[in-house]
């Protein structure tokens, strides 16, 4: 770890001022992503401005939706009764991520800002344009098992690892910052292009203060496939938000995780679903449309059939055509395959 200064901010203004005026300064909230990367010699901030004590920890009603303070912990948001019930996909995504200990530390702003799990990014001896712009991308032609199917560039093929971000994308969340400005969630995160070192559109010293979930009266759901039953990042995930009009789908929003540099909203598939009666056949067609443009790499082609199957299932379960694997709003609903041991209630 490189030497750094540390400062605890008492107000958002103070935090912003401290970072804005110091080159190389960064915010730190729970530190569960940032500190690891400092220890791995990937991040070298000159100054850490600790925002974890800022009064950004409220969850409040807001324009028919909910405003979640940037400093609310992942645990607190996940178990908030109103959120768990109205925005089940978000609770499911949070609870299917990381571990209890990490979720207790992790903040709602820090989570979508965590950096990629591309293993090359974490090894300073490997070429990586995201870590060291211009050094190349070792994942291209290397071991690219967890990498992107969509939106990748010649400079970077990484995926975004956050489960929460996928749910927020499907729920059309908005981010409030000290800009001051409001950023629609899918626009917060960027595609790699030729600047993969920039994950977000935030300016240096721009602090997220809250995440807004707009009013939503439908059902939402999150599904995640991973290499172990708990405490592993998604290979592929899928968040669905469905609003019905009688028996028909009025509006469907579907975001895929683990397939791109940001949560991947599948517009053409959403268009196919709108106005239709939910059927397995329709969902198959939507999943086919969603993956039509997938560009597999050497080691990640498995994500296409896996992702299609997952999307179909997420739609079936959200629409009620198939039972969920566990109570809505919990990790059990989100965890494909469930946990080891006998099925509690054989279905």
């Amino acid at each position: 770890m490189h030497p750094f200064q540390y400062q605890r901010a008492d107000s958002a203004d103070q935090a912003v001022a401290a970072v804005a005026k110091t080159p190389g300064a960064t915010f730190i909230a729970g530190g569960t992503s940032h500190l690891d990367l400092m220890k791995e010699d990937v991040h070298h901030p000159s100054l850490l401005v600790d925002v974890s004590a800022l009064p950004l920890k409220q969850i409040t009603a807001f324009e028919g939706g909910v405003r979640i303070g940037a400093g609310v912990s992942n645990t607190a948001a996940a178990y908030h009764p109103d959120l768990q019930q109205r925005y089940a996909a978000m609770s499911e995504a949070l609870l299917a991520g990381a571990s209890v200990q990490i979720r207790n530390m992790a903040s709602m702003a820090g989570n979508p800002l965590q950096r990629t799990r591309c293993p090359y990014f974490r090894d300073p001896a490997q070429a990586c344009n995201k870590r060291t712009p211009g050094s190349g991308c070792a994942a291209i032609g290397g071991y690219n098992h967890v990498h992107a199917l969509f939106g990748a560039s010649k400079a970077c093929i990484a995926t975004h690892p956050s489960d929460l971000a996928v749910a927020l994308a499907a729920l059309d969340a908005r981010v409030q910052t000290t800009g001051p400005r409001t950023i629609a969630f899918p626009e917060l995160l960027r595609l790699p292009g030729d600047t993969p070192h920039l994950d977000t559109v935030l300016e240096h010293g721009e602090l997220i203060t809250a995440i807004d979930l707009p009013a939503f009266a439908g059902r939402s759901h999150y599904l995640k496939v991973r290499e172990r039953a708990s405490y592993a990042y998604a290979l592929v995930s899928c968040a669905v938000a469905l609003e019905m009009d009688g028996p028909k789908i009025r509006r469907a929003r579907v975001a895929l995780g683990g397939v791109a540099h940001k949560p991947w909203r599948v517009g053409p598939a959403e268009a196919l679903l709108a106005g239709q009666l939910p059927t397995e056949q329709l969902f198959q067609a939507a999943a086919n449309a969603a993956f039509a443009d997938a560009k597999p790499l050497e080691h990640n082609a498995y994500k296409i059939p896996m992702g299609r199957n997952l999307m179909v299932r997420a739609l079936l379960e959200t629409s009620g055509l198939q039972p969920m694997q566990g109570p809505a709003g919990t990790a059990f609903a989100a965890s494909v395959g469930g946990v080891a041991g006998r099925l509690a209630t054989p279905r």
Partner: protein
Amino acid sequence: MTTQATGKPLDRVDGRLKVTGAARFTAEWDVPNLAYGAVASSAIAHGTVRSIDVSAARKAPGVLAVLTHENAPRLQPIPEKIGETQFRGEGGISETLQPLQTAAIEYAGQPLAVVVADTHERARYAATLVRVAYEERPPQLAMATASRKTLPEMFLGNSKEKLQVTIGKPKSALAAAPVKVERVYESAITHHNPIEQLATVARWEKRGGADFLTLYDTTRGIEVLQEVMATSLGLPKESVHIICPFIGGAFGSKGWLYAPPLLTAMAARAVGRPVKIEWRRQDMFAVAGQRAATRQTLALGATRAGKITALQHDTQTHSSLSSGFTEPCARLTRMMYAVPNISFTHQLSHLHLPSPCPMRGPGETVGSWALECAMDELATELNLDPVELRLRNYADKNPETGKPWSSKNLRQCYARGKELIGWDQRNPKPRSMREGTQLIGYGMASTMYPAGRGEAQARATIFADGRALVQSATHELGNGAYTIFRQISADALSLPIERVRFELGDSALPSAPTTGGSVTTATVGPAAQAAARAALAALKNLAVRDAESPLFGAATEAIDAQEGRLVLKTNPAKGEEYGAILRRAKLPSVIAMGGAKPGEEKDKYSFYSFGAVFAQVRVDEASGSIRVARLCAVYDAGRLMNPKTAHSQIIGGMAMGVGATLMEATHYDPRNGRAVVRNLADYHVPSCADTPDMTVEWLNIPDPHISELGARGIGEIGCVGTPAAITNAVFHATGRRLRSLPLTPDKLAFS
């Protein structure tokens, strides 16, 4: 013997220390004036260091010294052999490459510099400032195309474990067999990943004018380490003191690779202060050893009645450039079934990768996976129940050596395992069972582990206050060694367990071998007994010569030890407490040494533990996710010393088997040989949510030949067998054979 502590499910005696943090692990020793080392390692896998610039590191705050191959002291080569174990060369256990002795680079992550500073953080930071210019050459990273391939003759130089063997005429028998199965099975590189990372604290001092080295090290091979350090550093063995009372898991690591302690000792010498080097998790994928990948070709020939007539097992595996360690995959193949024609080979490719070393069930875990999966495939070909196939080929003696088993009750294991899992209630047809979206399957495998025993010494001290201490330089890996040796010692001393302590983990104690190969109970247990009895004999001698003793004048053979008293066998009322004898003699204690080693039984019998593992799985085919619903295993592992710690050992081993089957794999970049997966977020070991219901039963039949205790080791057998049982269950669930470990979701979703 009146007290009986062995065989009881006693709590771990070091449990409280561990839970409260009072157990001292290597990195926690508080050594005054300590300096801290951090290592800069090679970015490339093959080539040479053209130049190494340490000027920035040297100038960084707090830095005391920087060692590289240019200024590090020269080391002597490690010994050819230690005891009976071959260290160097093909089939040997260790690597000849020593740290900072050469500019040549043989694997990525090879230590190239040690930076010593006054704090841990400063050392780590300064290590990032070391700049190396390389002369890079293309690394060899693929087994198939390696330019150096060898056929090692023996495993660890053991003439009883040849690696290239033909018994009978397997080729022609296979050609003639009416039913054949020939398949290729592949397994990935895996890492031990104990929670405690490698660490060493080295302290030099002058004793009697000569150099003396004290080393706190995460080692489960105290004596071997002592010898390696002494040889490499040019010291007499007595001038090296190794201390390690607790190890936070090893699973095969921490025994056979010596760069970490050598670097620490060199660094401490260079700065004239004690130095500690704690390795990072990332480094564990470079310097801590690994299980090599394998590509195993199994060929089975059988009659239509299910009698196996030919069995061939050809393994391709790999080692580093400087090690000849060979994953011995045919360990079950050579002995498990009564097959007249058997052959097996092991081909080793030397690659620019870190050295492998044993990992829990070396050879057995992945070798038995391939064999037992091939057996399942043969059962399918024959349309025979997999258990029945095994029974039809049950070996009543060792097929390779012709020797009788010391004790084998495997039929009972199969029968009981079937009951536990509900084998006969399943629909044997593949892909016939379902619960909701999930396919259900059942599978089984035979398992075994060689029941070794070596030589060990122990010292027993009985104190005047009636307490006792038994000591031997063995190790506590979390396996329960403190507990069972206290139990065994207490019984041998006829004392209640609360009055006996057992000490280990110090090279100053009587000699014991490396803790590995599941030999510790069978090896150190009898030594502890011998020492305890010798101490009692000394006490008896005191008593019969003491005119004030009720036992005065008695023949020592007429005296028995009962519950802390020496008494007349014929009249137990007549006697006295141990302490009374010592107190009258004005002695603080009586001390005796004892040793034990296997005798000629070793050559008369074939010693193995056996077992049968049954698995039930749930497969979510659409996503490729496999979950183990249940594991039921029945073991014939001799007499248990402590059913509670044994149960923990076994379910830990089985959980590790679940990991090996479903998720564990380390990938190296195919071009530059760097470990791509280097942390525990990306290297998956089973979480609680991956750990199924496990039912474990023991036959608990004493082995009449291994030792008086009748106990065989149980450290590894849990890991063996589990992978094949699960893989076979996945076949039963899905009708699909997966022949590549681990069975990650991508393999089902896209194969």
